[in-house]
């Protein structure tokens, strides 16, 4: 089974040379730590920066330079700052190659819900609705089940949607899955996790074809 860093590490392998990548808050933010050094990637943050670098050294934090998670950051050579309209132009115009974000629920048709639990919690959609409506390559990073032990991979989302039919891949603590016409196609198992365990934790249709390899992280 993977922990949050493990999920991030596995997703980092999906990041290819020359990609512009938008990372959501939470597990996705960790992905940047695991991307190979020998490829060129630029991270975009929807609050208006391209070319994000690591956190600043202590004492060098600048309140004017943050990411979408409101964390202090640095920039790398070649970086640029821009306004929110331009930033979402990049996203809506499909200039960002890969979007990685968290979710409360994902449905087997690619629907995603991650911004609201009616009557209980409202986080807001932030930039997520723009991202999922436009991006062609969307990976969800999340735990396979919620704190109550219920599956987050469903036949149909129960929570208010963030976007419809948009998720292409899901990486959880248990598995790597692709969204297909037939349901969640199980591509890889997390180390030490059996197909049975994944089946049990998946409420939506799980498609298992032949031998499912254990992922190498």
């Amino acid at each position, binding site marked *: 089974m993977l922990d949050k860093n493990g999920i991030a590490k596995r997703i980092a392998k999906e990041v290819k040379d020359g990609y512009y990548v938008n990372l959501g808050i939470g597990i996705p933010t960790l992905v940047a730590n695991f991307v190979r050094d020998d490829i060129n990637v630029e991270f975009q*943050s*929807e*609050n*208006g*920066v391209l070319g994000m670098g*690591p*956190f*600043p*050294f*202590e*004492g*060098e*934090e*600048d*309140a*004017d*330079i*943050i*990411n*979408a*998670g*409101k*964390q*202090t*950051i640095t920039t790398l050579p070649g970086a640029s*700052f*821009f*306004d*929110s*309209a331009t*930033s*979402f132009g990049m*996203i*809506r115009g499909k200039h960002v190659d890969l979007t990685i974000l968290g979710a409360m629920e994902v449905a087997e048709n690619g*629907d995603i819900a991650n*911004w*609201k639990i009616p*009557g*209980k*919690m*409202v*986080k*807001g*959609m*932030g*930039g*997520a*609705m*723009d991202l999922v*409506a*436009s991006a062609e390559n969307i990976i969800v990073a999340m735990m396979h089940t919620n704190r109550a032990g219920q599956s987050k991979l469903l036949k149909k989302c129960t929570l*208010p*949607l*963030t*976007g*419809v*039919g948009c998720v292409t891949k899901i990486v959880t603590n248990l598995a790597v899955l692709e969204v297909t016409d037939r349901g969640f196609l199980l591509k890889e198992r997390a180390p030490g996790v059996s197909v049975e365990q994944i089946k049990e934790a998946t409420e939506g249709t799980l498609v298992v074809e032949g031998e499912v390899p254990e992922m190498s992280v």
Partner: protein
Amino acid sequence: MISKKVTGVEAALKGVKDKMTLMLGGFGLCGIPENAIAELVRIGVKELTCISNNAGVDDFGLGLLLQKHQIKKMISSYVGENEEFERQMLSGELEVELTPQGTLAEKCRAAQAGFPAFYTPAGYGTEVAEGKETREFNGKMYVLEEAFKADFAFVKAWKGDEAGNLIFKGTARNFNPCMCGAADITVAEVEELVPAGELDPNQIHVPGIFVQRIFQGKNYEKRIEQRTVRTRK
């Protein structure tokens, strides 16, 4: 040169009244018009509709106005990190119109640039699109979103000149440029106000035509919400 300079925050907020719709720049606490917000608290205007990506945190930014119940309605994309905002929304004390962040930015830009409405894919198939016109272009579905209308826009820039030209620093730019000229009156507060001619005309982020009043701001706290650092090896 048409001067936009006013003496200070009091003059800058002249005409702000109860029940007005205000736009406020900033993302989280980054690039927020701190002086204008403090003055809104001081003058105690009520029943405001505020268009702002966030509502600050519980004890800073627009959170200060929420605490005093000066806001009737928030139009925002994000609630997280502000418990009072979430509490007032869930209890029904506060009307909230949640809008996708890119749509929020473009509804400002549309108001600035004279577009009545635009089609965006964001929110299609979700609550956000309920009651709105949807339409297909080239096989993809879009939602028709209308430009905002606001009485005042309050923005914060790094540098500005008397002509109202603005330059921003880092990600403190965010929604500020989109809101300039998107309301009847745009008020800019700046960390450094310089005479006209000192800023390079090639480097202006917002031309002064979009700004009606500008003043030299004071006592910026510029709070950091998430201080993340790495240690030197």
